C-alpha cells in the first residue's frame, strides 16, 4: 500500500513537472532590432527604401532571392524560370503556399502584385524600374508569363531584390490599399502584430511558414534615429541587433559581454566621383589621373576605417558578375600626381577644389572625405569639403551643381546594369561622367541576355574606363552589425536583415 502510494505520488509529481519542463524549454524568444528610421509604409512593392524593405522582408516573400554566401539568384516563391523568347519570361511557382490570412498564393497573386506596381495611380517607386514589363499573364495556377516591351536581361535580378514582394489580392481588395498599408498580409516568416508609428513594429512568428520552421518567436523593430542612442541601447541590452557599428566602437561592443560585432563584406561600394558634367579641372583626364595617384586608399582604410573595408580597383563589387581583377589600381604616387597636374597646365600649389560629401549615410563618409582632402593637401592642393545633408547632396549631383568631386555609395551592387549602366551614361540621374564611346558600349551590353556574355561585355567597358579615371574607386563597405551574444545570425552582403535566418543559441 505504501509503495503504491509512493509510486502514485512520484507519477503525480512527474506529471506536474512535465509541463514545467516543456515550458522551460520553449520560452518564447524575442529579438529587438534597433533601426534608424521607421518603415515608410507596410505595403510591399511600393517604396524603395532600405529601412522599409528590411522590415517588410520579414513579412513578405519575393519570387526569387539571393544565396547569403555568394549572392547567386535562387528561386524562392518561384520554382524556376524559362526564357521563352526575347520578350517573354515564364516563371513557375510553388504550390501549397498560403498568405497569413490563409488565402492561396498562386499566379493570380503575381499578376495582382504587378498590376498594382505598374499602375500609375499607385505611384509606386517600382513603376520606373519594371517599366519594361508590359503585362503579367496567368498561364495556369502555378505558371505566369512576363511579357516585356523590349529585351529585359536583368528582370530576374530585379525580381530577386527587395521589393516586388508578393501581395495578397483577396485581402488587399477587401480592406483597400490604405488599410493594407498599415496592416500587411504576406507569405513571409513573420505575421504583422502591431505598428506604433515612429516607435516600433512588432511581428510574431508564422507557424505555417512554407520554407521551414521559424525559430525566433517575436521580432520587434524599434526606431532609434540617433546613432549613439542605438549603441547605448545595444550595450544596455535594450536592443539585440543594430547595423553600422562604427569601426572605432568595435572593441567597446566586443568587450561589453552583451553583444559582439559580426561583420560581412558588403556588396555596396563607396567611391569618389570626379565630376566631368560641368566645366572644371576634372574635365581634363590628366587631372583625374593625378587625383587617383594622390589619394592613398590603403591609408584611408587603415586609419579612418580601422581596416574595415575591402578595397576595389574596378567599378563594381566582387559580388557583381562583371567584377574584374584585370582593372588595376592606380597606386599611391604623389610625385606622379604632381607631374600630371603640371602636364595638364595646373600648378598644384594654386589649385583649389571642392569635395561634396554626405554625412552619416555611409560609414565615416564625412571623415573619409576630410581625410582625402588632407591627403590631397599633401601635394599642395587646397580642397574645400562641403558637408551636405543627404537630400541636398543628391540634389546637387542630379542638378550637376556638385563640386569637383563627390563621395557616394552605391549598392547592393549585384549586377552591372544597376551600376555601370547607371553611372557612366552622362544623361542619367546620378552619373558624373559621360563619354560617347563608353555609352555606346553600354547600350550594346544592355541588350545582351546571355549572362556570361553580358558580364564579359561590362568587363570590357571597365577596362576601357580605367585610363579615363572617372572615379577614384574606394572600397566595398564592411557592414558591421552589433548582435547580442545569444543570437546566432550572420549578416548578409546584400544588407537583408532577415530574421528567418536567426536562431537562439
Amino acid at each position, binding site marked *: 500500500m505504501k509503495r503504491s502510494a509512493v509510486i502514485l505520488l512520484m507519477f503525480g509529481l512527474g506529471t506536474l513537472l512535465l509541463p514545467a519542463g516543456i515550458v522551460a524549454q520553449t520560452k518564447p524568444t524575442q529579438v529587438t532590432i534597433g533601426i534608424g528610421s521607421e518603415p515608410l509604409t507596410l505595403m510591399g512593392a511600393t517604396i524603395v527604401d532600405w529601412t522599409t524593405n528590411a522590415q517588410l522582408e520579414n513579412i513578405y516573400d519575393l519570387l526569387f532571392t539571393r544565396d547569403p554566401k555568394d549572392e547567386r539568384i535562387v528561386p524562392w516563391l518561384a520554382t524556376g524560370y524559362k526564357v521563352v523568347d526575347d520578350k517573354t519570361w515564364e516563371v513557375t511557382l510553388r504550390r501549397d503556399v498560403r498568405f497569413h490570412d490563409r488565402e492561396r498564393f498562386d499566379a493570380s497573386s503575381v499578376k495582382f502584385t504587378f498590376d498594382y506596381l505598374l499602375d500609375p495611380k499607385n505611384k509606386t517607386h517600382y513603376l520606373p524600374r519594371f517599366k519594361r514589363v508590359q503585362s503579367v499573364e496567368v498561364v495556369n495556377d502555378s505558371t505566369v508569363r512576363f511579357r516585356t516591351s523590349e529585351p529585359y536581361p536583368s528582370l530576374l535580378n530585379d525580381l530577386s531584390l527587395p521589393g516586388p514582394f508578393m501581395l495578397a489580392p483577396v485581402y488587399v481588395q477587401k480592406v483597400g490599399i490604405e488599410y493594407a498599408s498599415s496592416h500587411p498580409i504576406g507569405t513571409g516568416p513573420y505575421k504583422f502584430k502591431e505598428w506604433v508609428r515612429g516607435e516600433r513594429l512588432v511581428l510574431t512568428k508564422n507557424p505555417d511558414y512554407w520554407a521551414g520552421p521559424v525559430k525566433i518567436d517575436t521580432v520587434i523593430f*524599434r526606431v532609434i534615429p540617433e546613432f549613439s542612442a542605438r549603441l547605448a541601447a545595444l550595450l544596455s541590452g535594450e536592443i539585440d541587433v543594430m547595423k553600422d557599428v562604427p569601426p572605432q566602437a568595435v572593441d567597446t561592443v566586443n568587450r561589453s559581454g552583451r553583444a559582439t560585432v559580426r561583420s560581412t563584406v558588403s556588396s555596396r561600394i563607396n567611391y569618389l566621383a570626379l565630376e566631368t558634367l560641368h566645366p572644371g579641372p576634372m574635365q581634363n583626364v590628366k587631372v583625374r589621373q593625378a587625383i587617383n595617384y594622390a589619394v592613398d586608399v590603403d591609408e584611408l582604410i587603415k586609419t579612418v576605417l580601422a581596416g574595415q573595408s575591402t578595397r576595389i580597383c574596378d567599378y563594381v563589387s566582387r559580388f557583381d558578375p562583371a567584377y574584374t581583377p584585370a582593372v588595376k589600381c592606380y597606386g599611391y604616387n604623389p610625385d606622379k600626381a604632381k607631374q600630371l597636374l603640371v602636364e595638364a597646365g595646373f600648378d598644384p600649389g594654386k589649385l583649389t577644389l571642392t569635395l561634396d560629401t554626405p554625412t552619416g549615410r555611409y560609414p565615416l563618409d564625412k571623415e573619409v572625405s576630410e581625410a582625402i582632402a588632407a591627403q590631397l593637401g599633401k601635394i599642395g592642393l587646397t580642397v574645400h569639403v562641403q558637408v551636405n545633408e543627404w537630400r541636398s547632396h543628391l540634389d546637387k549631383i542630379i542638378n550637376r551643381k556638385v563640386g569637383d568631386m563627390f563621395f557616394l555609395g552605391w549598392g547592393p551592387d549585384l549586377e552591372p546594369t544597376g551600376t555601370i549602366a547607371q553611372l557612366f551614361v552622362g544623361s542619367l540621374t546620378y552619373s558624373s561622367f559621360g563619354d560617347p564611346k563608353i555609352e555606346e558600349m553600354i547600350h550594346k551590353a544592355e541588350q545582351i541576355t546571355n549572362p556570361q556574355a553580358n558580364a564579359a561585355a561590362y568587363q570590357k567597358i571597365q577596362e576601357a574606363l580605367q585610363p579615363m579615371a572617372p572615379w577614384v574607386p574606394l572600397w566595398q563597405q564592411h557592414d558591421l552589425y552589433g548582435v547580442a551574444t545569444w543570437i546566432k545570425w550572420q549578416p548578409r552582403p546584400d544588407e537583408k536583415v532577415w530574421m528567418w535566418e536567426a536562431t537562439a543559441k
Partner: protein
Amino acid sequence: MTRYLVARVLQAVIAVFFALTAVFFLVRITGDPVILFLPLDVQPKDITEFRHLLGFDQPVWVQYGTFLGRALHGDFGASLRYRAPALPLVLQRFPATVKLAVVSLALVAAGAVPIGVVSASHRGSLVDTLGIAVTALGQAVPGFWLGLMLIWIFGVWLRWFPVSGYGDWTHFVLPALTLAAFYAAQIARVTRSAVLDALGQDYVRTARAKGMSEPNVLARHVLKNAAIPVVTVFGLNAGQLLGGAVVTETIFAWPGLGGYILNALLGRDFPVVMVGVLFTSLIYVTMNFLVDLSYLWLNPQVRYG
C-alpha cells in the same frame, strides 16, 4: 474689450496665414522634391512622369491655389514620404510633445519659482549666490550640449536613466530636464528680481512694522505682487519650449512634433511641412493669446486701446 479680442483673433489668423504662405513659397524655391522620393536607378523621363503624377509640374500659383482650396476642406494631401494622409501623421506626434512640454513646464513651475523666492529672501547669502550661479549657467549652457552631457553622465556612465526613446516615467527625466533648463533659469531670475522688488515696497515695510512674521509677509503681500511679472514671462516664453523641443527631440529620439517637422523640412516632404507649420503657428498664437488674456485677468488696471 470685445473689439480688442476680435482684433487679436484676426491678427492671429493673419499670422498663421502669413506663415503658411511664406513657407509654401520659400520651400518651393529650393526646387521640387520629386527626385528625393524616387529610387537611385530612376531615369530622367520617369522623373518627369512622377512630377506630373504628384502635381509639381504646375506653376507655383496654381499649386498654391490647389493647396488652399483643399486645406479649407481639411485635406492637406498625403505625405510624399509615407504615402499616408499628412494631417493624421502629424497629429499622431502631438501627444509625445505635449506630454514632454507639460512635464517640463511642471518642472519649471515647481523648481524655478521656489528657487527664485528662496534666493531673494536670503539675499546675499550663500544660498543666494548658489542660486544666481546656477541660473546664470542655466541660461548659458546650450540645450543640445546639456542633453548630450546628461545622456553621457546619467545614461551611459551611471546607467540611471534610459538614453533615448519614449516610454515610462524614466524616459521623461533627462529630456524634460534638458528642455526645461534654459526656461527654468530664466523664470528663477525673474522670480528673484520680482520678489526683491516687491520686498522693497512700502507695503512690506508697513507689514513688518506692524509685527507680521516674515513668512506671512512673503505669503500675503510679496508673492501676490511678484506673481504678475513672473506669470508674464512664464507665458511669453512658454513658446520657447516648442523651439527647444526640436533639439531635445532630436537628441533623445523623442517621437514628437518638432523632430518630425524638421525631418519633413529636410526631406522636402511638403504636405507634412505645411501641416507642421500650421500646427506650430496655431499653438504659438494660441499661447500668446492666452497670455494676453491672463494678463488682462491678473492686472485689470491695464488698458488696451
